[in-house]
């Protein structure tokens, strides 16, 4: 057997060999956040850049440094448990439009080699290589690039059901929830998790319970899918006959995102699931937005919707109560039913009121 030899010119040739027609979306968790909303927003920004640069696909690179598994802000993520967080968050990576591959790299040499190859091949990347070297990412992630894309093109790329789950969601709904009007809801409850943060953003549960009861009386065919981590819902929620908790069936974030995508509308607190709705095409109402975020989103505080949103996609800047939730629900419900009647006049529409 001929001994294999290492040559510098071979290295240079390999480093220059990447495809420039694909955008490299990099998630380096040593400085970027393990957070659903941030990952989803990153993917939309990457998609906007990919389209503008004429790239046909996006390769998602996930860099994990076992010695520095998370940004300094997320101290609860340690070398011992970062795989759990990756396992939980991974489905969010599958929602990106134009996704061609996901590469999870925790080998230090592979990370360095990949960065060198991206630079040497001049592959379009997000974040830029300069920001990656400086480990710089401003949070909260703004919508500047997305708004700019919308202004130029009149649309934005949308998130889809996680790859591999659209068929599952259709089957699940047909088997367990056929002929129901599905509403995905997310009641942020950080105070029920082991690492509570910004608990003032949590949803007022009593108001939501009152809202569920009111809808149960007036709209018996409506089913609410409560999304969120297993720790984020109260035990009593299961006693509502119009509520289904996917996590109580052993389902994961991937299934929840697929069900959100397959629901008729979304209602919930400003959170990661709300980001999924924000960059989707379903009607929604997102409550409890913080005023400071308006500047990052490129709009005025108290604006009724994002610049790129559809007419039936609403923002509410104050804490929700049952009356407000019911008002928006009825408004969106009427819109959905109107669309049903227009799109498929002959289709059976549930007589549920």
């Amino acid at each position: 057997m001929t001994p294999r030899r290492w040559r510098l010119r071979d290295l240079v040739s390999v480093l220059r060999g990447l495809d420039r027609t694909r955008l490299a979306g990099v998630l380096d968790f040593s400085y970027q956040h393990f957070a659903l909303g941030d990952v989803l927003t990153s993917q939309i920004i990457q998609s906007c850049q990919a389209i503008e640069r004429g790239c046909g696909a996006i390769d998602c690179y996930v860099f994990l440094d076992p010695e520095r598994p998370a940004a300094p802000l997320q101290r609860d993520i340690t070398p011992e448990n970062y795989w759990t967080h990756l396992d939980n968050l991974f489905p969010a990576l599958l929602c990106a439009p134009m996704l061609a591959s996901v590469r999870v790299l925790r080998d230090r040499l592979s990370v360095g080699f990949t960065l060198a190859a991206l630079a040497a091949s001049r592959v379009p990347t997000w974040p830029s290589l300069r920001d990656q070297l400086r480990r710089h990412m401003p949070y909260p992630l703004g919508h500047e690039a997305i708004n700019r894309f919308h202004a130029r093109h009149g649309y934005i790329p949308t998130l889809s059901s996680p790859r591999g789950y659209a068929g599952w969601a259709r089957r699940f709904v047909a088997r367990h929830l056929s002929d129901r009007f599905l509403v995905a809801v997310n009641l942020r409850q950080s105070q029920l998790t082991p690492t509570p943060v910004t608990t003032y953003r949590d949803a007022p549960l009593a108001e939501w319970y009152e809202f569920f009861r009111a809808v149960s009386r007036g709209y018996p065919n409506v089913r609410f899918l409560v999304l969120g981590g297993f720790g984020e819902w109260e035990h009593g929620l299961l006693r509502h006959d119009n509520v289904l908790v996917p996590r109580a069936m052993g389902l994961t974030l991937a299934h929840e995102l697929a069900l959100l995508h397959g629901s008729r509308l979304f209602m919930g607190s400003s959170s990661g699931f709300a980001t999924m709705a924000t960059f989707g095409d379903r009607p929604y109402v997102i409550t409890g937005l913080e005023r400071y975020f308006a500047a990052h989103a490129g709009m005025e505080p108290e604006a009724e919707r994002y610049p790129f949103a559809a007419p039936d996609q609403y923002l509410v800047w104050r804490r929700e109560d049952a009356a407000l939730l019911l008002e928006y629900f009825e408004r969106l419900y009427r819109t959905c039913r109107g669309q049903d009647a227009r799109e498929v006049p002959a289709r059976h529409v549930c007589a549920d009121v």
Partner: protein
Amino acid sequence: MFETPRRGAWLLGRGRYRWPEGPADRFAMRLCRRLGRGRSWLHRLGFVVLAAGLKHREQVLADRPDVTATLSGPAGMNVLTSLAVWQCELLQDPRTLRLPRTMHARLSVRGDVEEMPLDRLISLVCVSDVFDNFCIFWEGTDSPGSGPASRALEHPVSVDRSELTRLGLEPLQRVFALRLDPRRAVHGYLKVAHPGRLIVAVSLPEDPDGFCDAALRLWAPHLQRFQQEVSGTSLCLLNRTVHGAGAVAQPLPGVACVRGLGLGLADALALAQLADVYLGGLDLFGLAAMAAERPGVYLDPAATEESRTDLLWWRTDDSPDASLAALRLLVDELGRPAGADRERA
């Protein structure tokens, strides 16, 4: 391929070393690590340049660090079991480097990708201690540098006793490494929900989405009867089920459907490893239980004869009646927890 390293040979320019044992490589590795820890962009730049050279040297000089598999069907239990067996086989390959965490896996997904959920497959990779890098390429995309596929994960895989002997215990333990979070979650759950009881982890046949409801319809009455008759035991179902999800189906009395109680696949694998007894086939959960050498009734309908080794019972009859009768004998042999008889009275 290379000569054995000799002291001083490197300084004289005569040394030939295996990757990464050469003094220059080892020094560069150490420097790369130090640079990688640095906080300035200059450190980071130095790290990138050095790591690129070292990685390329690894690709050229190291033996078989990259492995490839294909998937062209739903990632059901068979695929998950196949992935676990494949990892064991890779660890036993004499060409595999013995250093920890050196293999880089590529999975090429083909066919109807919208019908191929990958969550459980990813969970299994996260539990495993075998792969350093893990890349997924969907149909039509290139996987640069990949060789021919070494494993088609969707091909039927059957694990029997002889196969287990071939796989070996140590590789199984690396595939089913007991991680910190799942271990904590399982112990927390057992202490709260089943204090002092003898825990039986039960695995039933699943549909491609991971639900066992079809098998559970057959097994549920038998499991409930067992739970009533054999006091002091708790039956923990490791598979997904619709029971307990509120508006869809009510909780199942007598059987703890743990996947609906906040335990994910990684937690369920940990439960299979931490339970007192295992009942089920030699699927993914069965392999996890074997990795922890748990006593149990392992169902192997394809086997020609039944056998028992200490507390590992191999049964060919996988009907609920026969399986639970064997489980009852095993539980008696293990000895039920103190107070079980009092509870029964």
